[in-house]
């Protein structure tokens, strides 16, 4: 398989997995890659909203797995980027709608269609959906907030990635783990109210691939159905661009991790 499978996972809910999946997939498409982003959260479809294609969902992931639609019918082409496609989650309540064989077949077919990257947006938790989202992955982006329960959960997820994936089972070499710290607030870190980048790296024993500052632009972007990476003026958008570049192998220094002193114009006009 030449397509690279990237799972975006976290264990804990509400930390920014879907926001990250949308921005990561869009960023890879901007870099010229052919990308599919799949919502694995069966029953709770959300990625379509964040990508802004919710009204164009006809067939979903489960339809494809069950042979009720072809992959081509179910892939929703992004309005902004030619090489970006979304595969929506089903809204069925049947949690067993996805099977390992079914997921494998879809990933193989995407590979045959010439996709460079498949981004798997994992549901929260460590149940079947989360397991299936990570099972075939080559890379994992573990999204973590600087908060105790999120850090603890991400350590469990790192453990599962190292043991419960196809790569681990076959001994194909470890999955590449990328830790992404989101909702970071440098001002609160500075006064000792929030775990720092270094704290989180030390606790989990892995370096971050990116730090996304807490930003009102993230909510604004999801309100509008535009992945925040496309908001080039926002710190969060720029931090996602940096993160995608690093995942593609580029070296970039961390930004927005120190308290910013706002200049006069920023104060007046925002920024």
């Amino acid at each position, binding site marked *: 398989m030449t397509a690279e499978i990237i799972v975006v996972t976290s264990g804990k809910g509400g930390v920014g997995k879907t926001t990250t999946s949308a921005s990561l997939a869009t960023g890879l498409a901007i870099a010229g890659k052919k990308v599919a982003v799949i919502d694995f959260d069966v029953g709770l479809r959300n990625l379509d909203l964040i990508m802004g294609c919710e009204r164009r969902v006809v067939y979903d992931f489960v339809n494809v797995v069950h042979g009720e639609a072809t992959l081509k019918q179910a892939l929703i082409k992004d309005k902004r980027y030619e090489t970006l496609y979304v595969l929506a989650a089903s809204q069925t309540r049947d949690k067993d709608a996805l099977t390992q064989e079914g997921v494998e077949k879809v990933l193989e077919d995407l590979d045959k269609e010439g996709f460079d990257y498949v981004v798997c947006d994992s549901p929260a938790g460590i149940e079947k959906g989360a397991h299936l989202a990570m099972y075939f992955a080559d890379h994992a982006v573990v999204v973590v907030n600087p908060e*105790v329960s999120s850090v*603890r959960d991400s*350590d469990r997820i790192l*453990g599962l990635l190292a043991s419960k994936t196809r790569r681990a089972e076959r001994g194909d070499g470890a999955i590449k783990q990328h830790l992404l710290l989101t909702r970071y607030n440098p001002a609160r870190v500075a006064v000792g109210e929030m775990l*720092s980048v270094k704290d989180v790296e030390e*606790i989990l024993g892995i370096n971050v691939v990116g730090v996304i500052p807490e930003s009102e632009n993230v909510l604004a972007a999801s309100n509008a159905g535009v992945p925040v990476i496309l908001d080039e003026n926002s710190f969060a958008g720029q931090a996602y661009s940096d993160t995608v570049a690093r995942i593609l192998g580029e070296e970039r220094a961390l930004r927005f991790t120190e308290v910013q002193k706002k200049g006069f114009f920023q104060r007046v006009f925002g920024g």
Partner: protein
Amino acid sequence: MGILDFLKRKPEPTATVAKERLRIIVAQERSTRGAPDYLPLLRNELLEVIKKYVHVDLEAININVERDSGHEILELSVALPDHAQAKSAG
């Protein structure tokens, strides 16, 4: 403590507390990761038996499963208190 003391008190560096708590729990959870599900139960039952003879806490019992090529080693250590007071075994 005076009524106005809270005005003088500096905010606690809660991030330090968070880090320390996480350091401990993460290390503990890693040590039992991938181990059989019965280990916590085994630990509790062992504690009951040991308590018949010495006073020890749950924390004093450390269970580790080490994997070597082809076999697993169940490693058990019990930290006895300084002045272990033996009970009558009755």
